[in-house]
């Protein structure tokens, strides 16, 4: 099984969520993170204008069984795309084992 971590624009979240549902990826967790990267954002406060590269982003953590991997990555890439700096990243890593607490199921079954 694979863990897909995607860091996207908050404003793109709903589209990504729909895209995931369309390909039957209905289980995931997300939270908000601050991202440091190429994108800069202008601010002004009491006459001091400053630009920060610390931008709030949404972090998605999705564990899928291997056959789901590619289509999931694809779906995210499409739905999170704007073409401007700051679209974000996707990271894929290996997951050894998974459990569903409620049913004690292990492995791929626990992800269904």
């Amino acid at each position, binding site marked *: 099984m694979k863990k897909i971590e995607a860091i996207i624009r*908050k*404003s793109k979240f709903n589209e990504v969520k729909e895209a995931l549902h369309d390909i039957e990826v209905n289980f995931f967790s997300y939270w908000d993170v601050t991202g440091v990267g190429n994108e800069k954002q202008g601010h002004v*406060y009491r006459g001091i*204008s400053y630009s920060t590269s610390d931008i709030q982003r949404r972090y998605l953590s999705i564990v899928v069984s291997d056959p789901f991997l590619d289509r999931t990555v694809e779906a995210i890439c499409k739905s999170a795309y704007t073409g401007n700096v700051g679209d974000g990243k996707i990271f894929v890593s290996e997951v050894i084992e998974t459990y569903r607490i409620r049913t004690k199921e292990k492995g791929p079954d626990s992800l269904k």
Partner: protein
Amino acid sequence: METTLLTVNNVWMMICTGLVFLMHLGFSLLEIGLTRQKNTVNILFKNVFIISIGIILYTVIGFNLMYPGSFIGGVLPDYFIDLFGLSLPENGLGPEYADGGYTYWTDFLFQAMFAATAATIVSGAVAERVKLGSFMIFTIIYVGIIYPIAGSWKWGAGWLDELGFYDFAGSTIVHSVGGWAALIAVWLLGARLGKFKKDGSVGAIPGHNLPFVTAGVFLLWLGWFGFNGGSVLSAEPGATSLVLVTTSIAAASGGLAAFVTSLMKYKQYDLSMFLNGILGGLVGITAGADMMSITDAIVIGAIAGVIIVLGVALLDKLKLDDPVGAIPVHLLCGIWGTLAVGIFGDLAGVGQFLNQLIGVAAVGVFCLISAFIILKVLKSTIGLRVSEEEEREGLDIHEHGMDAYPDFRTNEH
């Protein structure tokens, strides 16, 4: 003697002025509380702007426009006699002025605080998507010109007043004037993204801070002591105290009625409805606060509370997106309260009811048309609505480059 009585009256009127001013804080908290945190700075900015520009506009032109003394054809205030600025009249500070109810300065300031209210009502309805610039222009025209003209018809001793139309503290002259514009604005603006889904279902966009909403309503209730209590235009003990009683009772029964109705309708103890119901009751009693018996007040408030719950649902059906419920509260309950003067209390009667109807209709038509023209022109020129991206990411960061709560981790909706 006389001067002492004037002093008392004036003290009371100054206090009421302060209380009406406090309503602007109440509105600000109510509006930000019922919307999302990403638009908070923008809404606060609008409210601070409204009260500031409102006072200046009323100084420069509004006050004279609203109390013109004479009319052209009985409709258009004759504002050719010193329209601009304030000038203290003879005896403006003595017992002769306004039957010793208050001084010229108090008169002005009390009315100035009222004026800004009209725009504040609109501000809530258009929240989270309106362009700041366009809204500011609208405010200037609406508060500076439209409100005073409408007001002059009644309080400026205009034709509605002669007709016998009664509106004690402004269910129509203040609240509906704001409400009608809100209706037009909401319609021209369109709903917020995600409010009405493709599949026809209605999306809920929860307000981000219910404590602020509650604090806002408490402050508005208190402010109404001044709004209605001050509309007695003196400290006459019997009238002022009766008005405070009817006002508070209507607020209470409005809230309870809304809470019970929504409990039956949705099986939930909905705080936001309870609070809106209180406001509904307050607006409802405003037109006849001095004419109603205790029982009348309870009934008027209760009906207003029901109107709120049904009104909110109705707007959703009509696909009109009013984030803070400004239209049910100020327009619907404003109309209800005005008509109620013809149904309950000392003035009740068919003739009065018809006069009330005429008043509601006349002000309605005037406000609808003028609001439509102003907003339509703005829409087809600089535009009324922010870009989709801006709406998604929030007006605070785009129009103000600021977060309302930079130290807090937030959820996006």
